[in-house]
Each structure stands twice: as C-alpha cells, then as structure tokens.
C-alpha cells in the first residue's frame, strides 16, 4: 500500500532552509538566531519523522509513504524522479538521523558556544542532516547516491572545519579521497546494476521496482554489483581496507564526530546493504565477504583500540569495530539485527562521544587519556552518562547494546558461521576491556592533571548536559524495542523491519540463553581485566607493554597500515605522476600542445593584425568583399537550378 505523503518534502526542506538561513543571514543575525533556527529545523524534521512513522505504523506491514518532488532525468526510456519513499527502514533511519541529530545540534549550541565560525558550522551541520535524510529517503539508487555524496562532502567540510590547522585540513582531504575511492566502486556498482536491468528492458534504478524484478539479475552479475557497492560501503563505513580515514577524522569538532563519524553517516554503508538486501541475498559469496570483512574489521579495530591513548581515537576505533558487527549481522542475513545495532549504536556512541566532548570541553581541549583521571568527582553527571554508554557498548545484559549485539551473534552462530562467531565473541571481550580502560583512565584513579586545571574542571552547561541525559536514557532503555523473541513484547523493531529486511529463524530458546551467557561471560572477563589493570593495579599495563613490547608497538602504531598504504599506493602513484607523467608526458607532450596552440594563435595574430588599420573604410571594403561573396554564392546556387 503506497500513500502519497507530501509532508516528506517538508521533511527534506527543513534542513535545507536551515542551510540557506545560516549561509545568508547567519553571521548577520547572530548566534542565538542561528542556534534557534538550526536546532529548530532539525527538531521540526524529527517531529515530521515521528508523524510519518506513526502514520506508517498504523498501515498494514509492507506499505510505505511517498512524495514526488518532481521529474529528474528523463532520457529515452529512462524515467528518474526525485522521489522520496518512507518505508519501515527509512522510518527507523530518519528517526535516528533527525532525533539523534537534533540532540547533537542542541549539544553543539553549547560546544561551539565560543567558536566565531558558528554560522558556517551550523550550515554544514544542517547540510549534513539534509544530505543524510536525502540518502535515507531516496526512492532510487541514483538519488541515494546524491545524498551519499552530500554526506561525504559534509564530512570533509566538518573534519577540516578548523581549516587553518594544516593537519586538520590534511585529514579532511584524506577522508574525502578515501571516500572517493569507495565512491568509484559504488558508482561502478550502480552502472553494473543499471546495465543489468536495462539489458532486460527495465530502465530503472527505483528500489521498489528493482526489488520486484530482482529475479532478472543473474547471480554472477549480482556478485559483481554487490561487491562494488560493498566496496563503496567500506569507504563510507570505515571497514577494511578503507577504514584509515575515520580515526583521523577525529580532529573535527566532537559533536561532528558524534553525529557523522559515529551515529549516522558511517552507518550509511550498513543502510545501503540493508536497503539492497534483496540483491545481496542473490549472492551468497558476497554475503560471506561482507560477514568476513565485518568480523575481521571488528576484531582488528578492537585490538588497535586497546593501545590508543587519545580518547576520541579509542572511540573511533570502537566505532569501526561496532560497524564491523553490523556488517557481520548483515553478512549472515540478519539485516534487521544490523539495523537494530545501528540504532542502539547511534544512541550509545553518540552518548560516548558527547560525554568525551564534555570531558574535552571541561579540560580545555585535552584529548589524551594519560592526562585525565579522577574526573568522577568533578563531573558526576558526565561520569554517570559515560558509564551508561560504556555499559551499553560493552553489551552488558540489560543495556541496549546487549540486545542488538546478541541478536547479531546469535544469527552468526545459527547460520553456521562458527569461526566468525568465535572471533566476534572474543571481540566482545576486547570491547569490554578497551571501553572500560577508557572509562577508568578518564574518571578513576589519581588525577593526572595539574592542580589548578583540575580545579577548573566543571560540569557542562545545560544545553550540553540535556542531550547527555536523554541519550543515556536511550542507551539504557533503547534496547527494549528489540527484546529476544518470546520475552515480553518480543522483537518489535525486527517485526517492524521484517517486510523489508526479512527475518532469520530464531535459535531454540536454550541455545539463545547459552550463547548470551557465553558472550556476557567473555564481556565480563574483559571488564574485570580492565578493572584490574586500570583501577586495582595501575602499573600493570605498563609492565605488560614492556613485556610484550613488539605487540604493543604494533597495536600502538595501528599495525602500520597507514605506512603500508603510503608505501604501496601513495608513493608509487606520486612517483608515477611526478617523475614519469609530470616530467615527461605533461611537460613534453601536453605542454607542447598547449603552448604551441597559444604560440600559433599569437603568431597568426601578429601576421594578420595588420588588417586592423583602424581606418573604417578599409573595414567597409572587406565587408563589401564579404557581401560580394555571399551574393555570389547565392547567385551560383541560383544559376545551378
């Protein structure tokens, strides 16, 4: 059942209004106007999302709302419209984007309270919200790609927000370039899909039509297309091999890290896989690849996170790790669970980032955990919120992360991916370890700050605290929308998403219990290790690091992946372009053509400019010659007939 719902246009329009307002009037009208409008438009968008979701929920399963903004590309048989479609998946995502986005906008009012570039910041943030909503609501693949590129652009703009720092600008560029590499794959995937459908006479990229006619695609084509699209997804979602940009993206303002690089944009890859699950389902080998890459990334990032000292970097690697879980879920067919994890992850990771932001804000920009400690007493509220987030991400039973991660792990196990399941369980333990390491290093132990700076540490203002509280509540209770089957109201979100993502068959109840127990046990081991290492015997980590020096350095240096890329790709490309192409092809061949053109024109002009005598009558004479020629031409053609 499809219902026209023009308010969707409004949903998209609101952040766009915010962008225009901030760009054109922002600086003129001042900070409070910018804050009001920027937050207001996202809040309205959230309200509209809620309205649409409520409307959708009252309709039979599988229905959707849609709004057509206008025609877009009409070429030959191809008909692409700017079409927005609001189904269950889009509903969940747009609720997260606008809801969490709204909270982070509110938080930003406080966090950016001193920054002189507030209007630009909020313009970018609103533009990001617009692009992300476009990505989520797009009714066809190409329009989705517009949003996909838009969020990439905003990510770049916001990472390099403080562009006068060369490192920040470099990191922004890095994020952009790495994303572009993924986008090439994504675009190629679109082309392959389009030509595959077009060869069967279906000139469309519309999701609904593709879904209906997915049978037209042969498995081989599906594998190629899905691998390409997944390559794009690894770029946006920071998976191996294209994850390297995300840790560096942490130089942006912390609310940006929370919104873009934790809660929403980086999960776009998961969203795409979930959105196109009917295609991925055609290609089991791609599914295997997705699951494997997700799991390996999860484990890999978790180990790196163990050894990092920058609070935001740890969170960044944990994000990579958690997205790995999502891809694992998607790869084993539990798309609903993956999306569920996207939701809970948005809650607790946004919370963690905002909490970390509060700490950084309170410490005047300090991000190194080695110089924190003991903040519990000065910042009780932040401490409590961070605790809720840490418990949630560590998947302690009862907290939101538990339900979603557990669902993924169970799906992995029941679908027969035992090895992956094992790695994922170990990773769960690592998660507990590194997250509580972060938590203890920050809030417990002796203050490693100077006395006077420690005395200045304070709780964040209300606008920053309020989102923390809300997100903490969501982190604690958000998992209740997806309880395991048979417990109370069961898996509501899974049921809601089922028409789109399908459902995996649940494991027997005892198996569920057993698997949960194993996971929880491993997690608790990790937490206890952290407790021992960072609270009970604070010297233990150092000794451990000294004992396993090689491993520590390897982890601390992030497995030298950046260096490897630099050696394998960047340097050869640079060498090729500067030494071979630049010095030979460009300067010898291209320059010769370009310069030669200019010189030829100049020489020719020097030769013929004598015609320009400045005497009008000479010009008239030439004009007369022209008239004679034209009349003569017509005369000749008249004579011929």
């Amino acid at each position, binding site marked *: 059942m499809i219902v026209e719902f023009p308010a969707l246009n409004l949903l998209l329009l609101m952040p766009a209004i915010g962008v225009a307002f901030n760009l054109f009037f922002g600086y003129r009208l001042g900070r409070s106007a910018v804050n009001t409008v920027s937050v207001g438009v996202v809040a309205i968008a959230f309200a509209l999302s809620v309205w649409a979701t409520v409307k959708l929920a009252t309709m039979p399963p599988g229905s959707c709302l849609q709004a057509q903004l206008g025609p877009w590309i009409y070429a030959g048989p191809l008909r692409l419209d700017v079409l927005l479609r609001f189904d269950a998946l889009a509903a969940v995502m747009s609720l997260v984007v606008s809801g969490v986005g709204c909270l982070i906008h509110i938080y930003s009012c406080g966090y950016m309270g001193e920054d002189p570039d507030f209007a630009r910041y909020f313009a970018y943030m609103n533009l990001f919200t617009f692009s992300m909503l476009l990505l989520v609501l797009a009714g066809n693949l190409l329009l989705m790609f517009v949003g996909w590129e838009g969020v990439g652009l905003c990510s770049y703009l916001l990472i390099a927000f403080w562009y006068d720092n060369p490192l920040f600008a470099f990191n922004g560029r890095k994020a952009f370039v790495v994303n572009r590499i993924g986008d090439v794959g994504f675009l190629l995937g679109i082309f392959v899909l389009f030509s595959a459908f077009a060869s069967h006479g279906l000139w469309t990229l519309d999701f609904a039509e593709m879904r209906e006619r997915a049978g037209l695609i042969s498995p081989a084509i599906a594998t190629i297309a899905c691998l390409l699209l997944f390559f794009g997804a690894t770029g946006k979602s920071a998976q191996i091999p294209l994850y390297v940009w995300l840790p560096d993206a942490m130089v942006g303002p912390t609310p940006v890290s929370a919104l873009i690089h934790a809660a929403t944009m980086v999960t776009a890859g998961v969203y795409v896989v979930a959105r196109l699950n009917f295609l991925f389902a055609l290609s089991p080998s791609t599914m295997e690849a997705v699951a494997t890459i997700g799991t390996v990334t999860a484990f890999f990032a978790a180990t790196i996170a163990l050894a990092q000292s920058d609070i935001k970097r740890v969170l960044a690697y944990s994000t990579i790790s958690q997205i790995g879980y999502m891809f694992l879920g998607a790869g084993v067919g539990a798309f609903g669970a993956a999306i569920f994890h996207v939701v809970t992850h948005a809650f607790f990771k946004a919370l963690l980032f905002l909490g970390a932001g509060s700490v950084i804000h309170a410490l005047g920009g300090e991000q190194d955990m080695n110089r924190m400690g003991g903040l519990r007493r000065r910042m009780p509220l932040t401490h409590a919120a961070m605790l809720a987030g840490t418990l949630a991400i560590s998947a302690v039973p009862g907290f939101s992360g538990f339900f979603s991660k557990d669902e993924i792990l169970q799906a992995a196990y029941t679908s027969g991916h035992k090895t992956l399941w094992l790695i994922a369980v170990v990773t769960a333990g690592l998660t507990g370890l590194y997250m509580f390491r972060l938590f203890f290093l920050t809030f417990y132990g002796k203050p490693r700050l100077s006395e006077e700076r420690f005395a200045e540490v304070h709780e964040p203002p209300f606008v920053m605290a309020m989102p923390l509280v809300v997100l903490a509540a969501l982190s604690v209770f958000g998992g209740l929308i997806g309880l395991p089957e048979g417990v109370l109201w069961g898996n509501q979100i899974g049921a809601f998403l089922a028409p789109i993502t399908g459902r995996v068959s649940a494991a027997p109840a005892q198996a569920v219990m057993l698997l949960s127990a194993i996971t929880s046990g491993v997690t608790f081991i990790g937490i206890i290790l952290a407790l021992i290492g960072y609270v009970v015997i604070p010297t233990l980590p150092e000794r451990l690091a000294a004992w396993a020096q090689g491993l520590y350095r390897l982890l601390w240096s992030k497995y030298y992946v950046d260096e490897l890329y630099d050696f394998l790709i960047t340097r050869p490309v640079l060498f090729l372009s500067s030494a071979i192409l630049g010095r030979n092809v460009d300067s010898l061949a291209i320059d010769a053509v370009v310069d030669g053109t200019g010189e030829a024109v100049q020489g020719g002009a020097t030769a013929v*400019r*004598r015609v*320009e*005598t*400045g*005497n*009008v*009558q000479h010009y*008239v*004479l030439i004009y*007369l010659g022209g008239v004679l020629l034209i009349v003569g031409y017509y005369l000749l053609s008249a004579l011929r007939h």
Partner: protein
Amino acid sequence: MTPINYYLGLGALLFAIGTVGVLIRRNLIVVFMSIELMLNAVNLTFIALGRAMGSADGQVIVFFVMIVAGVEAAVGLGIILAAFRNRLTVNADEFNLLRW
C-alpha cells in the same frame, strides 16, 4: 506599369553608389550621408518587394528603418561633433585609434 525588377535594380544601384561613397570619401559627414543613401536604397527595395507581394509589412519595416536612421544620424552626428572637438577635423583617416 513599371516592372518591380526595375525598382529593385535601382535600389541595387543606389546601394552600390552609397557603398562607394562610404569607401572613397574622407569627410565623415559625407560618409554618413552615403550611409543614409544605402538605407534609402534598402527602403526602396522593401517597398518594391512589399508591393510585389501585396503586403504592407515592407512599409512598416521602412517606417522602422526611418526611425532607426533618425536615431543613428543623431547619435552619429553627436559622435562626430565630439570627435571634431578632440581632433579639429572630420577626416576619417585621422580617426584610426582602433588598430593594431
């Protein structure tokens, strides 16, 4: 009745005479008069062709040509006046700044 072709031939002749005038005279004012001559030759041609086709549109075009000729004469003579003030001559050969 005189054939229309005769009128057209006369128009061509007058146009050619005007062209020659533009080409050979150095007095800018006479050059301008020659331009008026060419415009008139065209006007005559319009009227003749309009008559041949039995349509009055040619006359309307001539009407517009007259207006534009008036405008052109006014502006052109204004420019000649200004140029004369600068150079104290209306010799076309003296005005050749627009060259290489």
